[in-house]
């Protein structure tokens, strides 16, 4: 079992009306708990989540570092999803 803290920012946070959630991923056989798996669990919530969390539309950071969807998640990781950044 893996407990994760998931954060959302920018337009994504606004459209899904969620800033933060705690989620538990149950180990499914030998399948790895990756960012891709978490993304698909979240996308299954409804059409808005599916659209705005789509790969390419929402970037991801694990423990405050931008990373890719094949990253394996560990217990107590902080995962953040957000649109491509627009600072500066």
């Amino acid at each position, binding site marked *: 079992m893996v407990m994760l803290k998931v954060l959302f920012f920018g337009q994504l946070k606004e459209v899904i009306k969620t800033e933060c959630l705690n989620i538990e991923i149950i180990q499914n056989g030998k399948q790895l708990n990756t960012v891709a798996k978490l993304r698909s669990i979240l996308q299954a919530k409804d059409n808005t989540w599916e659209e705005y969390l789509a790969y390419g539309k929402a970037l991801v950071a694990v423990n405050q570092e931008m990373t890719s969807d094949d990253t394996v998640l560990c217990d107590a990781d902080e995962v953040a999803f957000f649109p*491509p950044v627009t600072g*500066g």
Partner: protein
Amino acid sequence: MSHFTQIVVQAQDFDLAHEYQKLRNSNDSDGALVTFVGLVRDTNLQQSVSSLYLEHYPAMTEKVLNKIVEKARTKWLLGSVSIIHRVGRLDVSEQIVFVGVTSQHRQSAYHANEFIMDYLKTQAPFWKKETTTQGDKWIEAKASDRKKFKDWS
């Protein structure tokens, strides 16, 4: 005084002359000091903008900015580096971001300053929402910014 790296994320404005002096006073060996200031424009994509709202991911922002400076320091021999980025509500013509770099000769400072801004624009977790005559909307990332970032690698 000696060379330093300064990373600041704050809601309040900054004083360019003060930041310039800090960089200038940091050492006597650097002959170049390049500064960049980003401002809130009054138009974007043909729409009139009245203000911006800048959101960020606090736990991540300073980490990323520090990494960008570290990366710049591996590419050029730099003296002091300072980045200030503002968050919250900003009106037209207000200052958004400051990047200041010193080096012995101008080329390193010019290049490093541009490199830091190009990385900041695509890697640092800030998001802008603008208030326009057509309502509020989140700004979308630009392909031209992604290209500038990729051109460095």
